């Protein structure tokens, strides 16, 4: 206990997944997440599991479907173009209510884009991404330690709600090294997966079927209503976020993942200059932490969303602030990472603009 080891983000996720009870991983190579499947390929056979390199991300996510349907903890990972290919499977997994964990180490897009860090998959992650009305639970850690803790949380949430969970990282988090501690896992008291296709001999008298097809519209609507009730329950109970210096802030910044760390650096300098800047860091991107923004909108003068995208989360911030205060945006794209100086300049521009106006 308490031993801290230096690990690359991608590998730390793998180790954390194993400690969370995951023995099977299905993936397909893509930069910048390769260290994760590679780690699994080394480690899983040692403990009686397997990493299967699928023929495509489509196949990988459908292997996840089968494995999750058979009742085990299972993971896949990819980066943006590969995550696009997984959308079909994710929609089926959400429809069939299967628990699994999907990691997206986001890179710059659109198209083949680049291989440097980005956050341009926010919409895809938080709006479902595939066809139909469904939600992924989306977790966005900002440090490798948090990523490790998030993995356990992700598997527990997936099992608890029978829902796919996405860990949304970025190329930076996947590639960098930080000291991490693998904390003793408390054994979660989750319900048996009685619905899993483990063969009739394991559940005599009850045939288990994993399915997302409902040909009768009334039945499909009923299924959708059930899903929506589940999503509402998740939204009510599982919002996670961090607040830094929000109480007295004139400007409240929204940022997640790597970007939140850059914002923190900029904030330190801003405070030295006497600029009162606070941060709300969503950890669950869906469900989005609406409440802290609504609360902050009562007293802060302005909001700013900082992202490695052309402006995606800013829409959720606007919805949460609900027109009460202006919401600004600062972003870089293509794998260009915002600098603390660039962010600080934006703080000044907004706050000075306020003084002038």
């Amino acid at each position, binding site marked *: 206990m308490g031993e801290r080891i230096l690990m690359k983000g991608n590998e730390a996720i793998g180790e954390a997944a194993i400690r969370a009870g995951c023995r099977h991983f299905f993936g397909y190579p893509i930069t910048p997440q390769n260290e994760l499947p590679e780690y699994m390929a080394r480690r899983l056979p040692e403990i009686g599991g397997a990493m299967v390199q699928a023929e495509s991300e489509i196949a990988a996510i459908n292997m996840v479907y089968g494995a999750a349907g058979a009742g085990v903890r299972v993971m896949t990972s990819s980066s943006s173009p590969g995550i696009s290919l997984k959308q079909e499977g994710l929609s089926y997994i959400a429809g069939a209510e299967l628990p699994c964990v999907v990691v997206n180490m986001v890179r710059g897009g659109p198209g083949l884009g680049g291989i440097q860090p980005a956050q341009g998959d926010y919409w895809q992650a938080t709006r479902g991404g595939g066809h139909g009305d469904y939600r992924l639970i989306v977790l966005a850690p900002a440090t490798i330690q948090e990523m490790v803790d998030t993995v356990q949380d992700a598997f527990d949430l997936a099992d608890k709600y029978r829902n796919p969970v996405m860990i949304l990282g970025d190329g930076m988090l996947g590639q960098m090294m930080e000291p991490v501690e693998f904390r003793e896992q408390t054994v979660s008291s989750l319900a048996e997966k009685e619905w899993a296709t483990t063969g009739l001999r394991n559940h005599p008298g009850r045939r288990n*079927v*994993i399915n997302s097809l409902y040909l009768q519209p009334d039945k499909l609507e009923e299924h959708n209503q059930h899903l929506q009730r589940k999503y509402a329950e998740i939204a009510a109970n599982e919002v996670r976020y961090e607040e830094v210096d929000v109480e007295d802030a004139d400007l409240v910044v929204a940022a997640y993942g790597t970007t939140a760390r850059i914002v923190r650096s900029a904030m330190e300098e801003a405070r030295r200059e006497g600029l009162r800047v606070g941060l709300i860091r969503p950890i669950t991107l869906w469900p989005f932490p609406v409440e802290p923004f609504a609360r902050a909108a009562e007293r802060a003068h302005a909001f700013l969303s900082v992202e490695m995208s052309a402006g995606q989360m800013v829409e959720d911030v606007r919805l949460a602030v609900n027109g009460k205060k202006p919401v600004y945006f600062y972003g870089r794209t293509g794998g260009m990472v915002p600098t603390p100086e660039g962010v600080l300049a934006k703080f000044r521009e907004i706050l000075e603009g306020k003084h002038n106006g």
Partner: protein
Amino acid sequence: MAKVFERPKALADVVTHYCPGCTHGIIHRLVAEAIDELGIVDRTVGVAPVGCAVLAYDYFECDMQEAAHGRAPAVCTGIKRVRPDLIVFSYQGDGDLASIGTAEIVHAAARGENITVIFVNNGIYGMTGGQMAPTTLVGHKTTTSPYGRDAKVQGHPVRISEMLATLEGPAYIERVSVHTPQLVNRAKQAIKRAFANQVEGKGFSLVEVLSTCPTNWGMTPVEALQRVANEMVPYYPLGVFKDIDAEGEDK
């Protein structure tokens, strides 16, 4: 008096949605008989396709998963890899397996996944109303080849069994048909063999079954059976294309 013919236990006692004279029904029965005879129903998981057999999860009395179009071999892989004690099979049409799911079937076969695949080749997209399949014969009219399939325009039909037999991975590949009672018996043996192989851990087994679609072929059931004999079998010859047991004997 002994009953000599009854519903296999692995086949649900429900009315299926298959058209009259469609041979999907016969093939379901053969799969169920094989499962019964091997005594594996309580550890079998089937994977249904997207196609006319989409509701197969209601027809087999074992655990089932419904896969996305063409992805059944990947779904089977996921199940089998995490629970190798289960007997896992997919039941797929030709659009499902030979078109949209080509990558999945080729690589499941190449990996030698220890699963059983029942491939129902009726040379058409039945479920969506009779469009051209990758297996539609040259000259055949479908709703998307209304002038007849022209090899110059739409290419040639794909022979899946022959193609997969070139791989090292598969243990057993056979093409059968169900257009005569004798051939039904032969198909039954092949399907049973494909399941038995998995029980014995021999690896990937696929049985391609030539099948009819009287509805979308615009034929009576009898005419449809004749078409299988006269037009399909010449292009899709019946027989064993891969058998690791026989290879052993040769040596």
